[in-house]
């Protein structure tokens, strides 16, 4: 299914990575594919009735089956659940406690908000605070911290639908919603997703940059080539299968941990692989899905670039130049190097670069630019000898990105039309703390990333300085905040057998 997808570019020799015949029917298609052949989509954020049990899921799947990782289909559907959703469905406490801590606590737990820089005082959160979350009750609240941790909308599940065109999407969505409504499931929020390829078949995010350039490439375990052979390890982007799929060997050399349930007649459809004796693996072939609604203010972005560019010396350094420095790539996605950008190969931006050899000091791609913070590759190595180690270390913090933009394209990027638009950031990882949270906290929004001081990601972070290394002397323009966190949560993306288990849950008694 990965073939032709936006994010998982096929290799000429072996095609895109995929799951073997044993696991492909079990995992959700979203794991292996961003459904790039289905450019229209929507995210339906659902609120379950109290003590819903699993019956609603069974009726939904009868109407709109969840897509397995088998191959291209005309429609795509994926579903994932928050901890409060699983609770409403009646998953027992022992099983809930076997999920990872970040998932159990939720994205809005007070200490986590601080770690993720989701604090209103930083100016990186939408006015009025995020609109949605799982609203996980805090068993141990901090009486000294007044930051609100609840949101107006409570989200229990996310249903992602993908189709080739708008009518097809509308039809499948209508059917799904009718079924959900019948089961008492409310639609808390609907986010229309789009790829909207440009003339050159490139997906661009709202600021205008080609997006989705770099993805980890899983190998090992059930990951195979199109011919069914073990998928070769990619030198720069290879990650063990367990980094994206629970129950398979991860970067720490053990099966990625996930939720387990008692081995009884109700869990007969689940396998026991990597589960302790007496249990079955509810997480096997599933993953965690991180979802963040990031609102983008396009006019404010370009206004900020215009303003900051004026403060820079030299007359060639316009807003577009500065914006590309902020991102670290040109608008077309080519990574900046000293003196210019890497030329594309076969029309595709190159992704086989490292920083140490070509751009140690960030004279092309600034040390604190968005892509260098998102994946520093070997760029944090103190010397050449440490390069391979640092590259390997950085690989332990990768995740499969499955985000799409939402909202209409802006007609004039320098004129605010008042429309809401942005990115529904979605990523798949098995260790939320070591993968998503690490990248967010230790790289993206770290005020002391590399040797920088008092600045964060110029694209996503709060307003502040942005260092552009230049020979002989750096410049340090001020950039504003133009991306705001509007809602988000950690979801469990179950395998299809796990969905079978969940949908058989009886409604809990009061």
């Amino acid at each position: 299914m990965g073939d032709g997808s936006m994010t998982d570019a096929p290799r000429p020799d072996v095609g895109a990575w995929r799951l073997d015949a044993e696991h492909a029917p079990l995992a959700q298609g979203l794991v292996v594919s961003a459904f790039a052949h289905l450019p229209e989509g929507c995210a339906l954020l659902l609120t379950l009735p109290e003590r819903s049990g699993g019956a609603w899921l069974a009726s939904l799947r009868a109407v709109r089956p969840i897509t397995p990782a088998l191959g291209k289909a005309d429609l795509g559907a994926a579903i994932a659940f928050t901890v409060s959703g699983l609770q409403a469905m009646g998953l027992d406490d022992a099983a809930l406690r076997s999920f990872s801590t970040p998932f159990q606590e939720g994205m809005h737990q007070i200490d986590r908000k601080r770690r993720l820089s989701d604090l209103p005082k930083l100016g990186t959160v939408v006015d009025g605070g995020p609109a949605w979350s799982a609203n996980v009750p805090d068993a141990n609240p901090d009486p000294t911290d007044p930051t609100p941790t609840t949101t107006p909308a409570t989200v229990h599940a996310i249903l992602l639908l993908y189709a080739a065109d708008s009518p097809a999407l509308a039809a499948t969505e209508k059917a799904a919603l009718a079924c959900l409504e019948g089961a008492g499931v409310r639609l808390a929020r609907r986010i229309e997703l789009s790829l909207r390829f440009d003339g050159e078949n490139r997906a661009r995010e709202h600021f205008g940059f080609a997006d989705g350039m770099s993805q980890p490439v899983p190998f090992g375990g059930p990951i195979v080539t199109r011919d069914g052979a073990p998928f070769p390890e990619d030198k720069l982007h290879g990650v063990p299968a367990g980094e994206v799929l629970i129950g398979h060997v991860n970067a720490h050399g053990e099966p990625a941990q996930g939720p387990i349930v008692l081995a009884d007649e109700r869990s007969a459809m689940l396998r026991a692989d990597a589960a302790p004796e007496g249990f079955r693996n509810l997480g096997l072939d599933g993953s965690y899905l991180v979802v963040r609604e990031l609102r983008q203010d396009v006019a404010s972005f370009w206004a900020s670039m215009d303003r900051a560019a004026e403060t820079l010396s030299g007359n060639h350094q316009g807003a577009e130049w500065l914006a590309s420095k902020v991102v670290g790539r040109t608008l077309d996605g080519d990574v900046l190097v000293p003196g210019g950008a890497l030329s594309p190969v076969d029309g595709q931006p190159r992704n086989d670069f490292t920083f140490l050899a070509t751009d140690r000091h960030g004279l092309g791609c600034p040390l604190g630019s968005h892509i260098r913070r998102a994946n520093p590759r070997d760029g944090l190595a103190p010397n050449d000898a440490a390069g391979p180690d640092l590259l390997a270390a950085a690989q332990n913090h990768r995740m499969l990105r499955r985000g799409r933009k939402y909202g209409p394209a802006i007609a004039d990027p320098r004129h605010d039309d008042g429309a809401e638009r942005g990115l529904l950031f979605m990523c798949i990882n098995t260790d939320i703390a070591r993968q998503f949270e690490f990248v967010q906290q230790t790289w993206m929004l770290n005020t002391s990333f590399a040797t920088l001081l008092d600045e964060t990601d110029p694209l996503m972070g709060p307003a502040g300085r942005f260092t552009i290394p230049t020979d002989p002397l750096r410049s340090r323009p001020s950039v504003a905040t133009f991306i705001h966190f509007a809602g988000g949560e950690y979801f469990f993306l179950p395998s299809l057998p796990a969905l079978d288990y969940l949908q058989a849950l009886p409604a809990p008694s009061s």
Partner: protein
Amino acid sequence: MQSIRSVILELQPESVAQVRVRITALEQQQKELETAYSALASALPLLHFMSITVFPDAQYDPVLVIEANFDGAPGPFWQQFERAFGEELRAVLRCGKAPRDGRAALFQAVTRAGSRAPMAQLLEALSVAPIVGHQGNRGLDRARIVADGAAFTAVQAILDRGDVPPGTAPADLHRLLRAQLQAEFGLDRQAPPRIPPAESLADYARLAIFVLLLVVVALLPGTLLGMALLPHRGFGLHLLIGVGVMAALLAGLLAWVRTLEQGDPAQDAPPRDEAALRAMARREDRITQNHMGSIVHIKPGVLRAMLLPVALTVLSLYLRVSARDGYLSSMRTIHFAHWALVSNRSRLMFFSNFDGSWESYLDDFIEKAHTGLTLAWTSGIGFPPTRYLVQDGASQGRKFKAWARHSMAESLFWYSGYKGYTVNQIERQARVADGLRAASLDPGKAAAWAMDL
């Protein structure tokens, strides 16, 4: 020269709650000052990092630990410490159990009702030195770190004002900045060497002597045996026998270690105390630096008892010569860290003041420096299985993190003398300030120097 010391005091179990309240109140007082911690910053000018922790334990009564990382010798520091905390410190000390050894009289004198006896001597007597210590910014005293930081900030302010014409050559830039800042930052005074030659020599000498001693001790049995059995043959042959026996002994020792390791139980899933975990989480990630305090029990047995101090001493001496620029392998995020043997060598204590989140710190170890860490903690009860003392262990990321977190206690009081700076940043600031102290820089040096601005 910086010192690392930790005051260790067993507490009267009934008084633990009171100690916690008193220490939390002390921290609160400092936090609520107009400039938080300013009173402590001026009262303890030698102090880099300090923490006060109460470690609960299933087998022992709780123990209070005051960890201090400071400039110079312990004597003057503990005197300043006493003045800074005054009678509140005495009230805390009174909650301790009186030592039953030679320190009993001193403890009694300090803690009896109405006592005004000085406390510094007792603090020093109660304190332990680390068996392994590490300073990221070796040889930089606090005053210099703070002053270099101020000079760096002043440079940034000048550059950000746009006062420097574009295209200024680095050497000219250096001249210009130096002229502007010379008087304010006393740039004519050269900074002393970070590691004086004598100290440097001593580092190498200590390592060499220790290794030599180990070799001699290992050679001795075989050589003596050779001399006894073949008294008329040359010393060369005796030495050869010594080498042979040493090799056999080493092989035997390794086999013994491996046998122990294969039988060592591990604790994959230590019990989780949610309230304690939350109390720690609440304190973490407030600033760019974080703190970790841990105590673990040491595995029993004569081999462990012999091996652990030797292994830690080798690690310590090796770090003194190999990690002078702050890098442990390729990670440089530790300001001050140390291991110390406590409780009659039955427990191993670890403290670290580091940059970034706890998760990222542990990931750094797991990914980049797990060998040394495994060597140091392989004797800890419950530590993930190791092979030959240095393999596996900490590289089993999830288990290691769970084990390490379980060994920690909430840092009730934590102070950093320069909380905005990472180790990397301090080095960068030192390079910039060192450059400014130079009367002039040649074009090559100036260009490299300007890259740090």
